[in-house]
């Protein structure tokens, strides 16, 4: 369903059978010709306002080729790995499962919570945090959202809302990062994130 906000309410359009079924249950009045024109004008205005865009060509292919791009390392000095972008992204769905033992040790509750790929524990397996470095975690997020997501679900993981940009405390902008990654690396690249050796905590499994 598409909702277009006008001064005196919303123009609602159903584009699927499911949407139509919901629309049929609502109390509505037929939109006037004038209101529909306002909707069209609003869409045109929104398109004109959107001056930014992703790099040309296939972003998944670009990211695949940029896996060792030196630009990733620059995230080390910028990204706080706070996970704000994953918290506000409308398509992020990662989760973690926790077991909470009662104080008397008699019962345990197994629960599912929101998770984030920026959490070191997200990649903790077999005694090792696989993505121990900040750039590795940012790369995981960006390449999933704009790259491997397409392979998984047949569409981009980005809806273009810009929330991850708005809520990043240090001003990291996915559009700028993708643009930088789409450019050829400089002649003297700094060390790529994948070349760092993984950390190896001594005795941790599942629980932070």
């Amino acid at each position, binding site marked *: 369903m598409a909702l277009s906000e006008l001064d005196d309410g919303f123009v609602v359009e159903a584009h699927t059978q499911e949407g139509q079924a919901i629309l049929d249950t609502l109390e509505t009045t037929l939109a006037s010709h004038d209101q529909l024109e306002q909707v069209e004008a609003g869409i045109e205005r929104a398109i004109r306002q959107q001056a930014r865009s992703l790099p040309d060509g296939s972003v998944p292919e670009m990211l695949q080729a940029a896996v060792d791009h030196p630009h990733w390392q620059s995230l080390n000095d910028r990204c706080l790995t706070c996970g704000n972008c994953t918290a506000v992204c409308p398509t992020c769905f990662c989760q973690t499962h926790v*077991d909470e*033992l009662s104080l008397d*040790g008699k*019962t345990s509750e197994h629960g*599912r919570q929101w998770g984030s790929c920026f959490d070191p524990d997200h990649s903790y397996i077999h005694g090792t945090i696989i993505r121990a470095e900040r750039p590795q975690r940012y790369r995981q997020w960006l390449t999933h959202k704009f790259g491997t997501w397409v392979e998984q679900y047949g569409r981009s993981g980005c809806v273009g809302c810009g929330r991850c940009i708005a809520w990043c405390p240090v001003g990291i902008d996915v559009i700028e990062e993708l643009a930088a990654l789409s450019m050829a690396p400089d002649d003297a690249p700094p060390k790529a994130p994948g070349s760092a050796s993984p950390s190896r905590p001594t005795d941790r*499994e*599942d629980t932070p």
Partner: protein
Amino acid sequence: MTSALVPFEAEVVGCRDETPDMFSLQLRFTDPEVQAAYRFAMGQFNMLCLPGMGEVPISIVSDPDEREMVDHTIRKVGSVTRNLGRLEVGDRLGLRGPYGRGWPTEEAEGTDLVIVTGGLGCAPSVSLIEYVLHRRGRYGRMHIIQGVKHLQRPDLA
């Protein structure tokens, strides 16, 4: 019947040590209906849950046509896997799954197979190798490449 996100109670019906730090657990859901509804494809894995401690992803080693139990081979690495290694026949734990896509065994029919594994990663491929051996006419040549390391392990001496 089974939801992939909810652990169901399972019982240890068999356990054996493979090496000093590896062991296998044969598990069966305590609810016969859950056991009957459980299906997996070769290459998939389960989450094994120890209440109060956590859960770990473990590959399935057994034949998918074996409907009475599901077999896992595990290396003791952290607190959960070490405690899984202390379980005995009759002990209970949580199991949820299966996860992962599994291997494209049907797509691969009529072709040669190359099975490449490293270390304990060979465990789930055993079921695939046996699967192919039992259906030899459907596949071409089978190559098995197994990477192993021979570390001196003073703690295992």
